[in-house]
């Protein structure tokens, strides 16, 4: 068994990889590198092409409202404002619905109904955005105008809910309401609700059973248990889900493009026709853009990408932290 004639040599415990293993490692490493290559190519290409336009416009890119790259006067102030305007309306619609539905699914319904609702939420997240756009264009636009008119009539004293012309006189004809950030926001909100619901529901269902039973055993009602156990444990999921939805809402193109009528000034009146978004701007202008115009669009796209990137990373780190907290707590 042991060889006594040879001097004791320290034997390496690392075995040489077999030929199939080195091939396997090489192939998977290549795949990983290719993926990173594609992703970095997108980022680098965007930055390099965008820098042409950014060199010309410099800081005014962020504060200028006009968009005419041909005369070198262009900026994304109005467009970015519109993007956030639509996204904030969308969050106003989506977050209460998503929160309520997530709590409903994780706390109220049970058994087969629950799994059916979970499947339905996942299914809705896969519905193409053009379908939501069709609904917004052909159904919602006509039906929501009376509501918008009513809000602007009775709540017009709140500055951003007023609908007025340049002279400050209130407008009431339907054409002043047709293509507003409000309508686009409702459609985008419905589009992101499923994403938010499924993240929140997952976070809520991880609330520890011991604490739940403790709350119930101390005599709390179901809502008392939800308020003191489920929501504190799911706080990360609520914030993270909201931000993931926000990231999608900021980048949404087709539904917004189909509904809004693009303008290039900051429009504080949410209910009034005319808004814009970065993605709608790209879809609108890429075709006739010159080389420099395309570079300006790239710069706008890059800014949008950086914003959604920041939002998404914040969201996923919050979700991840809350998840580990739920496990230890």
């Amino acid at each position: 068994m042991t060889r006594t004639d040879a001097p004791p040599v320290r034997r390496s415990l690392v075995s040489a990889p077999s030929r199939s293993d080195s091939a396997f490692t090489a192939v998977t490493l290549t795949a990983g590198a290719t993926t990173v290559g594609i992703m970095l190519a997108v980022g680098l290409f965007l930055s390099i092409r965008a820098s042409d336009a950014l060199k010309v416009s410099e800081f005014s890119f962020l504060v200028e409202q006009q968009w005419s790259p041909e005369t070198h006067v262009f900026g994304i102030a109005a467009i970015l404002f519109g993007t956030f305007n639509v996204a904030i309306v969308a969050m106003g619609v989506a977050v209460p619905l998503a929160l309520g539905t997530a709590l409903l699914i994780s706390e109220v319904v049970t058994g087969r109904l629950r799994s059916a609702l979970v499947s339905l939420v996942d299914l809705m997240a896969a519905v193409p955005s053009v379908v939501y756009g069709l609904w917004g264009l052909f159904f919602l636009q006509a039906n929501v105008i009376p509501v918008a008119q009513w809000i602007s009539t009775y709540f017009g004293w709140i500055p951003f809910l007023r609908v007025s012309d340049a002279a400050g006189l209130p407008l009431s004809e339907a054409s002043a309401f047709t293509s507003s950030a409000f309508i686009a926001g409702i459609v985008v909100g419905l589009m992101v609700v499923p994403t938010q619901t499924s993240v929140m529901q997952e976070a809520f269902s991880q609330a520890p059973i011991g604490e739940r039973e403790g709350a119930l055993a101390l005599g709390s009602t179901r809502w008392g248990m939800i308020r003191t156990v489920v929501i504190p444990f799911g706080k990360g999921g609520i914030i993270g889900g909201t931000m993931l939805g926000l990231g999608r809402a900021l980048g949404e193109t087709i539904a917004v493009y189909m509904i809004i009528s693009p303008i290039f000034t900051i429009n504080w009146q949410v209910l009034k026709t005319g808004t814009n978004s970065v993605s709608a701007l790209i879809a609108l202008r890429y075709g006739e853009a010159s080389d420099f115009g395309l570079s300006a669009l790239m710069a706008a796209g890059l800014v949008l990408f950086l914003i959604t990137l920041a939002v998404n990373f914040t969201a996923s780190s919050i979700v991840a932290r809350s998840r580990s907290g739920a496990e230890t707590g």
Partner: protein
Amino acid sequence: MSIISDETTLHPRVGGEVDAPDEPDDLSGLATSIPSVEGVETGPRRNLRKATLDEKFNLFGAAVASIALTALLFGWFTPLTGIVGWVVVAFLSFIGFYILLVSLRSDAQEVKDRIMTALLVSAGIILFSALVFVVAFALIRGKDALPNLNFFTETMQLAGPLDPLSVGGIFHAIVGSLIQISIALAITIPLGITTAVFLNEIGGRFARFVRTIADAMTALPSIVAGLFVYAAIIQLITHQRSGFAAAMAITVMMLPIVIRASDVVLRLVPGNLREASYALGSTRWSTVWHVVLPTARSGLVTAVILGTARGIGETSPVLLTSGITSVLNVNPFSGPMISLPLQVFDFVKSPEPNMIARGFGTAAVLLLLVLTLFTIARVFGGRGPGQLTDRQRRRVAGQSADDLKRMARLTNVTTPVAATVIATPPAPENAAEHRESSEPPEGTQLFPAIDPPHPEETSP
């Protein structure tokens, strides 16, 4: 959580999955015993979840009162009009009446609980009815175009905006969508799954970097992906819009989705399966190929199908890259090639009612396609790695039983059958070819190791 009834505690169901098969009867004298229920009177079981008559009446009464009040307000007392206003007023008065009725018999905590439950249920009803309505709206408005068979077999080449629905169709868009998604899948599946394998099986600092980058790319707005392909491939290389460019844009969108989903699935493969495989002396590659990937198969299929459903419905990257045409084009490398979502978008830009009807028909086709893909994904998925269907479990159990007979014949051991079963190594799938070897050869299906012992195996 649930209250276990006395019957189930005292008489465990024989052959249930939770029962340990190696629990001999003769040890019952030593085990913890439960007092007999003979002679103890038990009342009928109460259903603890059922709503009481009181609660039902509160709901019913509040609903009736709110409808009546709203009808009065809108019909007689005030100049209110409009269906939206009606619903809002009815809902608010329902909540008010419900508070009133509940507070007659309960304290503040109880009232709060009831109100919040009512609000949660209404949030769910609003959301699901809105979502179902969005989908149904496209399907119902699409019913004008769908019954015409030519809608699926003809292209729009010879059909103008004013032509009736019996002329022209979306065959070119269906073909275009299929070609584009096939190219995208041909790139995404190998690259995405191999990358996910790299993230999980190789690991290390570079793998973490890859994972971060893939996560970052899920944030890429789809229109920016389209803009990238437009500037990098169409303007610099091909100088024309084509199906291939559109497929590239879809790939950039789908790749991070597939990587992320497959990564999650592969992470769920139990570590002891890998360790068992390594302990049997297999290499990394054969562990991945014979253990990890088969175990995660259903989850990977689900990941790919869900990615496909997302990719096939993407409009904005295709808008910039594929170009719009009304002619059938099967060559992805030359000339514009339209796809279903873009065709919807193109149809509804027209003011003609027939074109809009076609747009809704196309959206219905797209929607049905996505629903089908999703259903397939659900049928495959929904099970964790290594969880078997009944049929697979029966097959594995049958293999185990055959194995047992074979080994008993070979060794002529007369030990009790139950003891042999516990000592039996995982059954080789190709058992007949390895009669002499008692350890599973390379290529063994390790499913039986994580399968709970099946009653059929233990019955002598």
